Every structure is written in structure tokens, then in C-alpha cells.
């Protein structure tokens, strides 16, 4: 959980400071490559951190005057409710974070280096 929280905070900081969405992949990859204990751990942490970050942020912006635009986007994607845009946003982030985290771990594993990470 701590890894998820740390990754999430790092992702949040980078996303607020720069206009790039792909930090969620880079941070998850870095966690997988440097910290994760297993492929499953890297995958889950990436999924959790990125997914939760975008879930929380999506929810915040939805409630802070985002319902009309979320409703229109939902219409564009053929979804019935503006609320559905929040889980969709979270799922896309989670998927991106998960595959990046797993790839990070797999690369480290292939290079034969041991992780120094704590239990998360």
C-alpha cells in the first residue's frame, strides 16, 4: 500500500507540474524496475497508483463543475451517464500503469538484478 501511495503522490506531482499524461506509465515502470518484488506486485502497484490517481482526480473534477462536459463525453463514447466517465478514466490509467509496472519488473528480472524494495 505504501508503494501505491508513494507512486500515486509522485505521479500527482509530475502531472500537476507538467502537461504530460504518460508520467503514470514512467513512474509505474520505475517502480517495477527498481522496487517491485514480483511481476504481480509491479502490475498491481502500477494499476492501483495510476487508477486511483485518475479515479480521484476524475471524481474531483466531475464534482467541481465537470458534469456537463463529462455528460457530453459520455455521449461521445456511447455511455449513458457522466458518472461512467470516472471509472473509464480510472481503468485506462490503471491499464497503462499496470503494463508499465510489469514491464519494468520484467526488464529488471531479465537483467538479473535483485530488487532492493521493501514489502509493500
Amino acid at each position, binding site marked *: 500500500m505504501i508503494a501505491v501511495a508513494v507512486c500515486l503522490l509522485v505521479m500527482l506531482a509530475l*502531472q*500537476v507540474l507538467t*502537461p*504530460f*499524461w*504518460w508520467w503514470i*506509465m514512467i513512474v509505474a*515502470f520505475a517502480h517495477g524496475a527498481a522496487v517491485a518484488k514480483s511481476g504481480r506486485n509491479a502490475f498491481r502497484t502500477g494499476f492501483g497508483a495510476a487508477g486511483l490517481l*485518475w479515479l480521484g*482526480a*476524475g471524481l*474531483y*473534477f*466531475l464534482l*467541481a*463543475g*465537470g*458534469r*456537463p*462536459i*463529462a*455528460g*457530453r*463525453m*459520455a*455521449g*461521445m*463514447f*456511447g455511455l449513458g451517464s457522466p458518472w461512467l*466517465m470516472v471509472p*473509464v*478514466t480510472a481503468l*485506462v*490509467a490503471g*491499464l*497503462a500503469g499496470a*503494463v*508499465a509496472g*510489469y*514491464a519494468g519488473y*520484467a*526488464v529488471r*528480472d*531479465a*537483467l538479473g538484478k535483485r530488487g532492493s524494495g521493501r514489502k509493500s
Partner: protein
Amino acid sequence: MKTVRAVVSLLLAGLVFWALDNRHGTFPALGRLLDPFTGFWQNGSRVDRIPRKLVIPGLRDEVRVVWDDRRVPHIFAGSDHDLYLAQGWVAASLRLWQMEFQALYTAGRISEVVGPLAVPQDIFNRRFGLAWAAENSLRTMREDPRTREALEAFTAGVNAYIRCLGRRRLPVEYKILDHRPEPWTDLKCALLLKAMSYTLASGNRDAAMTAARDALGEATVDRLFPFFPPLVEPVIPPGTAFEFEGPASPAGGSEAGGTGGTDGEPPASGLPKPPDLLSSGFLRGPGVGSNNWAVAGKRTRGGFPILCNDMHLELALPAIWYEVQLAAPGVNVRGVAFPSVPQVVAGYNENVAWGFTNGGSDVLDWYTVTFKDDTRAEYLYGGQWRKTTAREERIAVRGGRTVVDRVVHTHHGPVVRWADEPPFPDMDVPAGAALRWAAHDPSNEIASIYALNRARSYEDCVEALGMWDCPGQNIVFAGRDGTIAIRHNGKFPLRRKGQGRYVLDGSDPADDWQGWVPYEHVPAVKDPDRGFVSSANQLYAGPEYPYYLGWDYAPFERGARINEILAKARDVTPEDMVRMHTDVLDIRARAVLPRLLELLEGKAAGGAEEKCFEELQAWNFEARAASMAPTVFRELWAELDRATWSDEKKGDMGRMPRPASEILVDLVLNDPGSEFFDDRSTPEREALAEIAERAWRTAVGNLEKSWGPPGPSWKWGKVKGTRLGHLARIPGFGLEGLEVDGAGHVINAIERAWAPSWRMVVELGSEVRAWGSYPGGQSGHPGSRFYDSFVDGWAAGRPAKLVFLKSADEPHPALAGRTVMRGAR
């Protein structure tokens, strides 16, 4: 094994990154779009915050913008320069994406955004020469110091706004379509005006009419498409005296071709390249029409003139207009503007009001061209070979190779389609013919609007409108001094009667345009005895007017209905006029339905036909959304029209061009045995009675097939299904399925996708009072609560009272906030 896993997982991660970071066809780049920190989540209602202070480089003095509670900006500046710079900033803050999209579309550059799908549309717009036309006009606009200043300031304002936009604040359509705003240019202002000329002044049936003449003979064509059709009441009331003579020799054949060609060569392609846009067809659609009228003080309760206008255009979100008030020394004007053009286009100031309907006069002709050989380097003209010129058009395509198109120009203009090319969906273009179009000529409508915004009298307006060349408009006027007037205004080619109805001979100098109708001679009337003026796109004047301007005008219904109401009107109030904007009486139905029902009496077979017959019998001729009868009458009329005309075609004609509705109405009422009712595919000789019965049967059958047994699903509002589509056709960004009163040929001309785009009523009393509404909202941001906030009031015919301030400090209960703009130090 581990290596394989690492490689595969890296590839997978790379694939996910690539998939989420790129647009795929029309599917957006999901990663960037959904990112809560830069994607669409940033386009919520924060766009509705009113900034208190802004630093805008280029401003010379302080500008104050007062926002009312309908999000209308009232801009107060110390000079023209600051006024238009602030307008540019404000327009961009409300509508930037729309402005750029329309400009790119018009310029034939929409493939840069949309991709290969849009190439045919871009080729059409380039061949048609819309950007070339804009470049020609822009040169003229830059020669006039006032319009040059207005354009440059406006452009600086738009660019100041673009520069302050980070990725987060980009309008959401940029994020969905994955492009970025490029710097604004003066050319884009000119492009929008050419887009309007295309919408309003490019309609033609020359190719189809030529085929009809060749197959049916000119006499039949003249009968079906008369120059002075029955039932139509011209814009200029019959009996109006014209105090001038017509052209001495209308059929003349000047050697030099007079104005036979657009001035100068087609510009080389080194000139500023305009933007390109999508191919949603925002430029064109059926049923372009509008109404305007003014009532003199002697007919109004307050004793003041009242001016009314509703301009019909394609419905879209963001709306084509936005409301604005512009005040600076020498000007205080309120009304609607195009987001891409400085100034107020239609509206009023403290002394006068004006409004538009499309004039519809013919300013576009096609000329057959005889080329010397396949190089198309020379063509025949006046017995000699003349050289063509060429303009190379490079169409950049997103995700594809740049398309290079060589547009060949004769002195008439560009050749739009070659014989080996498929037809364009936008227009029936005769193959290999050169296009002569008045909108290609240099003109400066911006100067006209500039003067109109500052006009204090009818004389000022006449002078201002002398610079209004294209699109030709019926411009209604009312002044606080009591004057009312209407002008069929524009730059019209001088031609013999009927010239240009058919494709012309491009090698014969006698077929060239022979100059222009002098501006002092355009049809106009001021303060007529009847106490009102009006227009609804119909014929401009009767046979007493000595020039020929065209033949294909709107049918009789709206014009006749307006005149019918106003002729009886006494003690008119602005509220009466607001109600009149939503008048839905169908006078075509009122004219023919009793006769048709007589013929159909007792012929109903089956329940559906009986039900329909009863509905029509009980109908009050009003096109109401909740009523079934308009649906039945529309279908019956369409079938009657088809059954009467489609079998008239002969030889290798395509579809038979449809005569105007008044021709069929006239036949139904006055000539039920007409040969045109005869169905030429049967040996018997049919008359109206037989054809009406067949049309009736087919019509009811069609409706049952489409909407089931007669019932609530047949209601006019449902069947019509009015919608406001998004400009780029993004699903979910428009409004669908509105059930609204009205129909194309009644005053409240709300059709499926065409409708009154701005309704305005102005009373010119000691205090000018005005009401207005349009289908849309001030903000072009789909996440704004002002995106479609006017739609309900518009649909219900409840306009807003328009706030018109004397100064930025004037207190008013309907104000929402203020922005103070200053230049950079």
C-alpha cells in the same frame, strides 16, 4: 525465457503507450483525452469564470468588458483599435475552436485536421476558389486604413488569447481531434465572409436547367420557371416608381469583356495560406431563407418604427452567431456578430437598426471552355487562343501524403470539375466549365459593416451599403427619425434577361458579364405608403424594375404571410412582433387543402386514410409540433409534387428540376386539367383528381411504413426531429430530437436542421428597446452552462430583452461581472 518476457512486456507497454497517445482514425488519443490534469476533465465549468483583470499585449488604454447574466459581453474601449482587439480576445475566449475550424474548412485545409476522408471536400473548396476569393478581398480590406486597423487589432486580440492557452485550457474539441490552434490571421476573417457568400450566393441550377431546356424546350422551361411567378409578392411593393432608366443595351457584347473576369491573375501560392476545416457541410443546406420587416410608426402603438429580422441558417453548436455590444468614441452598437469577424453584423445602435435576408440574385455563372489541347494551357475566346493560368493547391493531409491539385483559371474564373471526375456532393458542377462568381472579386464588406455600425440615418446606411458587394441581401432599415426602408443590396452583374440561367458559352465575349448594375439603381424603397417593408428571400421587384438580376428566388409562402399580417396590423407592439416571429400558419395548405379534400372526399380506403382525412379536415393550417396534420400534408404535398413533375423529364435529363411551389399551387387552383398532371407513363390522360388520389394513397402508405399506424408517432414535431448538430459532428456534443413548432415555408421556419439563427425585434423609440434569441449559447465550450442556454427560449419563442448599456458604469440589474483589460507595460 526472462529475456523473451521482458521484450514482450516492453513491447506491450510500448503498444499501450502508442495506442493511448495517438488518434486512430476518428478515435481520439485516450490517454491524453482522459488525463484528468490536461484532458477533457479540465474543460468543465471553470470556463465560465469571469476574469477580473487581464493583461493583453497590444492594448493602448484600459478596456472594460461588462458581462450580463446571459454571458453577453459589452465592450467599452477608448479607440477603435482597442475595441476590436478586445473583441478578438473575447470572441476567441468564447469560440476559438469554432473560429479556426470554420476557417480551415473554408480554405480547403480540413484534411490537416480530419485526415484523408476530407480530401474531396478540400479539393472542392480549393477548386471553387474560396481561399483565393478571400485573398482577393483581403487586399482590398488592407487598402482601407479603417478596416486594416480593425482586422489587425482583431487578429492581435485572438492571438493574445491563443498565446495564453496552455494545453490544459485548450477547447475540448482540440483535445478530441488532437490538434492545436495555429496563429490567427486577417485572412481567416475574410475567409468567413467568403464562407457566407458560398452559403448564400452560390446556389445555382444552371446545369440541370440547361439539360431541361435542351430536352423540353425553352418555352416549357419558361412556363414552369417564370421570371415573374404567380402568387409571389415582390420585396419592392408593386407600383413603386423607379426614377432611372435601365441599361441601354442589355445584350451588348463589349470586346474587353467589361467585368468579364476577376481582376488580376490568380495569386501565386506564396500568399498567406488560410486554415482548413472539416467537411460537415456547415456551409450549405437546403432551405436557406430568412425574414425581415419593419413597421412604420403610423402603424405602431408607441408611434415608433419597429424592425424585425430572423435569418435562417443551418442549426449548429456552437451557434453561428454570438451577441455582443461594442462601444468606443463614435460607435455604440449591439447585435450579433460572427465570431471570426470584427464588428456587429446585424443589430442596432442608438439611432438605427438593420437586418438581413438573403437576396438570392444570381451572381454565379458557368461557362463552357474549349481548350486547345490536353495541356489546358490555352482556351478559345473571341476567336483567339488565350492563355490559362494555374494555381497550385497543396493539401496537407493528416496521416497521409500531401495532395497537389492544379486549378486551371480562365479569365472567367477556375474550372471546378473535369469530365473524368465524379460529381461533387456539394453542387451540380458542369464538367469542364469555368466558374464566374461575384464573390471572387475584391470587395470590402468589413468597411460596409464598419460604417453601418456607426450609421445615424438612412442616408448613412445607403452610403455604408454601397460597399456591400456579396452576398447580395435584402437589408431592412429603421431609424429613430421614423424612416423605414428596404434595399435589395449588392453588386449585381449587368446581363440580358435570363442570361446565366443556363450554362454560358465561354468562348463568346457577348456571354460575359457586361458590367455592373449601378449601385444607385439597386431595388430599394423608403417609407412606402403601406407603412411597412418586408422580405422573405422572394423576387426583388416586379416587371417595372428595369434590370434583370436573377430568376430563382424563394417561393411565395413566407413573404405573402408576412404581408398579409402586416397589411392588417394596427397599433403594433413589440410583443406582437415577437409573436409574429413564431407564426406558423401554412398558407400553402390554406390555399390548396380545401380543394384537395374536396377531391379526396369519400375516397379514403382503410382506417389510416380515414384518420388522416379527418385530421386534415379539422386542421387550422398551423404547423404545430403536437399536431399530426402537418405531417400528413407535408407528405401529401411531396407526393403530389413528385407525381406532377418527375414524369415531365425527357431525353437524357437527370432529375427534373422542381418548379417552385407556387406553380403547383396555381395549377391546383386554376388549371386542374393541366397537361402537367397527366402521368406520361400511362396511356390514359390523368387530371388533378386522379393524381391527387394516387398521391394521397402513396403518402399515407409512406407514413405508415415510416411511423406505424397513425398516432402519436406521427406528430409533426417528432417526425421533423429538429436537431442542432455539433459543427464537427462529434456525437453527444449537439442536441437531438427537439420537438418544435414551425416549418420551412412558414414564418417560424424551423425545419429539421435549418431554422431562424437569430431573431431580433427592435423598437426605435426615445430609448431603443430590443429582444432577441438564437439557437445556441454564447459559449462555444461544450462544458459551459452557456453552451446551449438559449435553446429553450428560442424554441418556445420567448426572446430575451437585450441589455444595451450607455456606458461601462451604467448600473443594470442583469449584470454578472466585469473584466478590466490593460495592455502590457
